[in-house]
């Protein structure tokens, strides 16, 4: 039971994970909060994560653009190439974003990379539509370029939003 710390009168049934109420009051060593944060000052963390974000964005957008480019190689028509290319690109982006989520964060990696991968792979598809067949190297470079651009855009937007809040760090 919660006993003396019972937060008020209960109006319903209390059931715990094991079918009974679970209350833990421990006298163990003090909780260590944020061991990682204690080791690394916020400024270093910001730089480290920014570097990680940049590398990830370049990698994921280049991969997505290359995937879109591959889809245009077979002679199966432009429309099918665009649909398959975009699908492959987004599949690659989602897979890579899940892979880095434990380090860079799930939302932090998924949302910007979705925008970047979509833009990069669309650009490659547009090049095919207008008749300029990019090589794999060109597709990778186009993708990487979009990764850098979207990374810069996200950083600028984040800075702008924090500034509107009067927040210095981030």
């Amino acid at each position, binding site marked *: 039971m*919660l006993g003396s*710390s019972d*937060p*008020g*009168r*209960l*109006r*319903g*049934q*209390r*059931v*715990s*994970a*094991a079918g009974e*109420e*679970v*209350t*833990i*009051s*421990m*006298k*163990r*060593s*003090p*909780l*260590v*909060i*944020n061991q*990682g*944060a204690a080791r690394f000052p*916020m400024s270093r*963390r910001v730089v480290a*994560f920014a570097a990680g974000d940049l590398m990830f964005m370049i990698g994921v957008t280049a991969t997505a653009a290359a995937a879109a480019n591959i889809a245009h190689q077979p002679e199966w028509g432009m429309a099918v190439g665009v649909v398959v290319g975009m699908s492959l690109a987004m599949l690659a982006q989602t897979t890579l974003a899940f892979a880095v*989520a*434990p*380090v*860079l*964060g*799930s*939302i*932090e990696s*998924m*949302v*910007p990379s*979705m*925008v970047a991968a979509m833009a990069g792979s669309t650009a490659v598809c547009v090049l095919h539509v207008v008749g300029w067949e990019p090589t794999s190297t060109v597709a990778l470079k186009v993708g990487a370029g979009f990764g850098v651009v979207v990374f810069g855009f*996200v950083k600028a*937007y*984040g800075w702008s*939003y*924090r500034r*509107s*809040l*009067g*927040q210095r760090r*981030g």
Partner: protein
Amino acid sequence: MSSIWNLRAKLYDLCEGSDLRRGPYKAELFREMSGRSLFVAIGTGVDIRHFPPQVSVTAIDLSDAMLRQAAPRARLYDGHLGLLRANALELCFADGVFDTIVTSCTLCSVPRPVQALRELHRVLRPGGHLLMFEHMRSRQMLLGLALDAMTVLTRRGGTEMNRDTLANAEAAGFRITGVESVFLDIILSVRAVKLDPAGSLDPPGHVTRAHPTGEVRRQPR
């Protein structure tokens, strides 16, 4: 609904493995937990390590599987921590019994967020504080559209990525007193207060998301 979360409990730690990046922000927000505290949707207990010591916490979750996984982490907490199966939409507590209520990536997954926030408002004492570590829809068009697209898929798993949790909190009767960006305008540390009927209408630092000011980051407790 609880069956979805029982299933998700198996992969929860992997999917929520963003603690490396978000942990310091959570710790800073949770440091303001004081008095009798309610933590809504404890999940597998990944946030317990960020609780300040010696606080009396009641942590609830809808899922038995989540609570089972949270129990070992709860045992490591240096304070009083009770785990309880409960639904945020229908809390089993009397009115105004908590001094602080904390949510962490909770209000994206509650079916009716305003109703849940009204329940939190009910069980929080007048003048009590609501601390929210939540993600929501970006006001930036492209990022907002990306979150809308993600929601088409994540909704099946019980999570909506494009809610306006700040507006929902205000609709439920809270006054937002502090907003801190963790990641763009998508992941935010939010501080809100339940107004004391005898107090002023707008506490110092009152802010809305549409009109952020430079005076909102930290309010004296």
